[in-house]
């Protein structure tokens, strides 16, 4: 794809945290781009660095965190060069974020109306009355019944699904061009999750914003995203268009993840086991970071780190044996059948 048109370009991003025990390389060389109006999914297990990636782009890291390298370009501007005062204008206005737990992300001592109006008043040239009208309008758009009444309620008076709707209303109140959604439905029940996902899709169409969907749930990814970044231990292991990824995963981790989920469609007697656990971020293994859990790992994997290589158009994976995986799957499948 044409890199010039990208809304957001993240290039070799490295975010390190300086902790008492040492340096945690939470994000270590992540590259991706987001195009206007599309949905990019970032998927991975806990601790893979998917949330830190979005916090880095928004420049919301705490004092221990530091962007140690790489480049973030948003609408042609280098995000790391933008002074904080300017960044405050961009944050909430041009790019916004919604979080996993709406109860902790909303301020419990202010009404939701106040919190939505705060963003509008900060970024737009309107008076309080107009802002209130806009907030009510926004609440209606996200499907909150009786918004005129609900606007004066406190977060604890709303159910989980309604809170998440209020969060979305807040994030979209200034019509951002880029929205990060960090596990937006993980804390919700499935029927409520379905409502929220549907809402996000229709709002995205309406506003034409780009969405970065961060989740551990491959189901949500398949449903929402057009392109997907798979992360493991701070690295991108695979990056592809969604249909390609699910049809032809080329990284053993992606394949393992897909086969570890119990499916509603097919009956599997035994789920695929990715052996072991995610390595300690203070002490990542040498070479490929997945080598300790990979069934295909060889000495080469334990010594040299594989680069992201292009397998086909718009499909890259970081594995020394991208071709071997397909063979290995065939062997495994044949073994199962016998």
């Amino acid at each position, binding site marked *: 794809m044409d890199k010039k048109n990208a809304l957001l370009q993240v290039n070799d991003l490295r975010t390190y945290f300086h902790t008492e025990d040492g340096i945690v390389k939470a994000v270590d060389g992540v590259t991706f781009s987001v195009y206007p109006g599309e949905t990019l999914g970032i998927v991975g*297990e*806990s601790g893979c660095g998917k949330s830190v990636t979005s916090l880095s782009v928004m420049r919301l890291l705490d004092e221990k965190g530091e962007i140690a390298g790489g480049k973030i370009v948003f609408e042609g501007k280098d995000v790391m060069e933008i002074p904080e005062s300017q960044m405050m204008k961009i944050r909430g206005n041009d790019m916004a974020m919604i979080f996993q737990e709406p109860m902790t992300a909303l301020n419990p001592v202010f009404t939701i109306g106040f919190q939505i109006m705060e963003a509008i008043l900060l970024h737009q040239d309107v008076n309080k009355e107009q802002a209130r009208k806009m907030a009510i309008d926004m609440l209606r758009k996200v499907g909150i019944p009786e918004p005129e009444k609900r606007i004066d309620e406190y977060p604890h008076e709303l*159910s989980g*699904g*309604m809170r998440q709707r209020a969060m979305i209303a807040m994030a979209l109140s200034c019509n951002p061009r880029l929205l990060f959604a960090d596990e937006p439905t993980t804390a919700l*029940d*499935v*029927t*409520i*999750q*379905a*409502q929220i*996902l*549907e809402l996000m899709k229709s709002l995205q169409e309406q506003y034409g914003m780009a969405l970065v969907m961060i989740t*551990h*749930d*491959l*189901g*949500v*990814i*398949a*449903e*929402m995203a057009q392109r997907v970044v798979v992360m493991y231990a701070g690295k991108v292991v695979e990056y592809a268009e*969604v*249909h390609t990824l*699910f*049809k032809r995963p080329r990284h053993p981790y992606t394949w*393992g*993840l*897909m086969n*570890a*989920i*119990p*499916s*509603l*469609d097919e009956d*599997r007697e*035994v*789920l*695929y*086991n*990715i*052996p072991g*656990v*995610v390595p300690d971020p203070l002490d990542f293994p040498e070479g490929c970071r997945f080598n300790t*859990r990979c069934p295909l790992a060889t000495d080469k994997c334990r010594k040299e780190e594989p680069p992201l290589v292009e397998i086909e158009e718009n499909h890259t994976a970081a594995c020394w044996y991208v071709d071997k995986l397909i063979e290995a799957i065939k062997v495994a499948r044949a073994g199962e059948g016998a």
Partner: protein
Amino acid sequence: MSKEQKKLLLRADNLVKYFPVKAGVFRRVVAQVKAVDNVSFDVYEKETLGLVGESGCGKTTAGMSVLRLYEPTSGRIIMDGEDTTYYFMPIFKARKYLKTTYVEPLSKLKSEKGSIEAAIKSIDSEYDRAIAERFLKDFGGDGNRLVNAMLANREDKRKAFRRDAQIIFQDPFSSLNPRMRVKNIIGEGARIHGLATGSDVYDRVADIMVKVGLSKDHMSRFPHEFSGGQRQRIGVARALILNPKLIVCDEAVSALDVSIQAQILNLLNDLQKEFGLTYLFIAHDLGVVKHISKRVAVMYLGKIAELSDKKELFDKPLHPYTVSLMSAIPEANPEKKKQRIILAGDVPSPINPPSGCRFHPRCPIAKDVCSKEEPELKDIGGGHFVSCFFPGELKRGL
């Protein structure tokens, strides 16, 4: 039906659990949270019954009530051919329970039917028949003798129940005492129940740790030295060491990452085969429940909406709630564009549940009758139970 040959291990019979809501200076009870409201299910030996539903549907409360970690408001829990309901009640309540459950109805039944034989014959359930025989024949209809006989050795019975019924909790972090070494966490039960003494306990602990995939060299460590998946294995080992008949798995894999979740699910399956375990598997994730269960019960707002064999339930869901729940799950397959049935609104409050069918305010096919009458959980053939006036009318879009 093949079910006849299978041995019934656990029967929850009209289980009810209300939590009082107290308010005011005098802490008066102002309302009841009807967490579990008339729920009945059977669990057969060596099989897994999945209990699935959204948060607040009462699935965990049902599991806790079965184990008597909550004292049920009413209902019967029969385990391994014994009524265990009165085991944990205060003695006066236990007496009253036995009188109202057995002595009075059976005496009445006898006088209605005219003879002991006819009365016994008219009872359906095998378990109740055995009690009736004991009461009417052996004890000659003397209520006090029956009550006293059942109350005898209650302490031993309690202990045996606690050994036979175990639980694995959701959160592997808060369910293990951070100040205890793993060998004591796992071994404590074995010691209390006298399965081993002295250092023999640790031999048993080592055995069990290996069985659940932990290294026995780690038994002197503390819980914080383990990862989430390993801690859940400790929880499994703690339940397993007592050789239980029933294990209630309360969201046992929900807090884990996908790859670790698969490890624990496979472990639970392997252990079931090896030790002939019976699981009551409580979870909100339909995929997980489908994977591990033999039969599945879908709960909504304190009631069972549908209960059936797994294959039947997933191939042919009949309750509109089950149908919409299944259609709401995002599947890891971008090729499949599902026709979603999006339910409006939230789950209503269990303090003041809707009249009639509890699902009717959100049900896409609700009719007048649904808000007025409550549908019964009925077997519509082949052990497929559904509580809906219009089963199968809401179709899953493809």
